């Protein structure tokens, strides 16, 4: 993995500090061209990995990348699935079964016509695979060396102690996509313990890592202990603690943990992208 990974929160009005700022972002990135322009700027600064949710609009970005192979040579996308709010809003309105019906590709009830939902319920893992394939469709033809599950799902499975699901996910991503499975979480130490318990070794884990302990569940101390002592491939996110920290002190803090392989960040202007990238390259060993 590259040291610097470009994120997509800024494109989809995700701002953990201000609803007002998130609205401003959604106005600024109304058109796909605006997203592509910033992505191209990140590439100009030398960032070649884009980590993004499986938001509907990412499909358009993927089409653009596929249509312009020369401009995106060696470009990598790390998909993160699913785009949780899409499902969460649907579950509120339609219930769990209704949501599955809405988002599982059209022919699923044909595929499972024999036993219908009864069959499906007996084959939960098959359902998981179908949903993964549906989310991955937009990336066909693009290099996706690491594929992540979003934190809402990771942490739900973690809390429910359904650890075997992680092992199944892990195996499927390796086999079907020849990619490294990754996990986004707000509970890094607990997740690492859970993954180890089902034999998932040296996993790629993307979690909040910042100087003030923001969104580091269980506290900063245990995170730091795991970053020093455990075997895994950490990606640091929310390093600026949603804007509470200045970039220099934020990145400097990460420098004391040589295990951190990459830093995920998003920004909307080229100078800001450039500055953050240089800081990461300077301080991350």
């Amino acid at each position, binding site marked *: 993995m590259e040291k610097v990974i470009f994120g997509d929160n800024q494109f989809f009005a995700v701002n953990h500090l201000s609803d007002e700022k998130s609205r401003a972002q959604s106005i600024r990135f109304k058109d796909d061209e605006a997203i592509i322009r910033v992505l191209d700027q990140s590439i100009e600064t030398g960032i070649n990995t884009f980590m993004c949710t499986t938001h509907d609009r990412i499909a358009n970005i993927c089409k653009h990348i596929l249509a312009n192979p020369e401009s995106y040579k060696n470009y990598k996308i790390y998909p993160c699935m699913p785009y949780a709010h899409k499902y969460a809003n649907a579950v509120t309105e339609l219930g769990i079964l209704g949501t599955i019906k809405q988002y599982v590709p059209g022919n699923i009830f044909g595929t499972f016509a024999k036993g219908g939902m009864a069959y499906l319920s007996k084959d939960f893992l098959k359902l998981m695979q179908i949903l993964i394939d549906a989310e991955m469709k937009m990336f066909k033809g693009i290099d996706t060396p690491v594929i992540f599950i979003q934190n809402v799902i990771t942490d739900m499975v973690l809390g429910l102690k359904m650890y075997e699901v992680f092992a199944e996910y892990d195996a499927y991503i390796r086999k079907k996509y020849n990619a490294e499975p990754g996990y986004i979480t707000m509970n890094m130490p607990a997740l690492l313990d859970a993954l180890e318990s089902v034999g998932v070794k040296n996993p790629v884990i993307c979690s909040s890592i910042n100087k003030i302990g*923001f969104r580091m569940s269980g506290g900063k101390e245990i995170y730091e202990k795991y970053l020093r002592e455990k075997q895994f491939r950490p990606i640091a996110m929310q390093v600026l603690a949603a804007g509470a920290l200045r970039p220099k002190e934020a990145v400097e803090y990460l420098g004391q943990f040589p295990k951190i392989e990459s830093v995920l960040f998003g920004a909307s202007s080229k100078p800001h992208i450039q500055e953050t990238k240089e800081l990461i390259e300077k301080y991350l060993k």
Partner: protein
Amino acid sequence: MIKGSVIGLGKMGLSHAAIVGAHPKVDMVSVCDTSSMVLDVFNKFTKVKTYSDYVQMIDNENLDFVVVATPTKFHYPIVKYALEKGLHVFCEKPFMLNSQQGNEIVGLAAKKGVVNQVGYHNHFIGTFRELKRLLGENVLGELSHFSGEAYGPVVTKEKGGTWRSNSAEGGGCLYDYASHVINLLQEVVGRPSKVHGTLLKSIYSKGVEDAVYSLLELDSGLTGTLLVNWSDETYRKMSTSITVQGKKGKIICDATEIKIYLKEAAPAQKLDKGWTIKYITDFAIPVDFYLRGEEYSAQIDYFVDCIGENKNARYNTFEQACYTDSVIEMIVNNNKI
């Protein structure tokens, strides 16, 4: 270990089950739902016992508490049964379908002396707590107006079909989104005792309202607006805010930031003249397990601590949630005028 169970495994139920399951002081011994598909998943991947009948589960298992996260119409019988068996109960919002049922349940919980809490999670968001504290310190002086608002993209197309599209079963924006705001206003500003000028509007839904606009009057005489719309796709997810205006200034508060405008500085609160903006990073309640927001874990932590320390819950009691139900009734009645 405190033994608990979750009844109803929809979106909130699964979320609660994950939080309860991860809680270091709790042993989640069982779950209950009518969907065999959901129970199959638990049977396949966990050691938790599964039930499709809550009576059987409560009778068979030696539980300390239940979390009730079923559709609203089942809250009354399930909560009642659990209370009769002496269990502590955490119930999802909205509380009951009417305040008559609610009052009975409030009385029963008091008689049994058990911990009782309702899932109005905004009370566990640090910014709203800070707003309440600042109002308590009288930084705004005499209050002149408040506005409680919530917007989000739940129903953005014309369709329907679940219990959420039936107002008699607790569906609709009033019971779902607006109840959060009403409960939060109660906690932070005060209890509405009169309702005026209500507009319940269907935008995409048939049979239920997608927007609630109403004027609320508190016991103190203070008035304000309730503005709620769950068919607004300019919001990525539910966004709740409270604005309070007083003679000395104004505060706008949501889950991520609190913006304070003062006509004169308030040195005791370290607040300048003009705008001061503070962020959730200063106020978030630390949790050991995070899922979808600190507040969801913090409310369960609080519930479990109240059980463990044998103390009465102060936040989100049945009594407060029941009062929210009565305000909902006032709004419905006002709309008929």
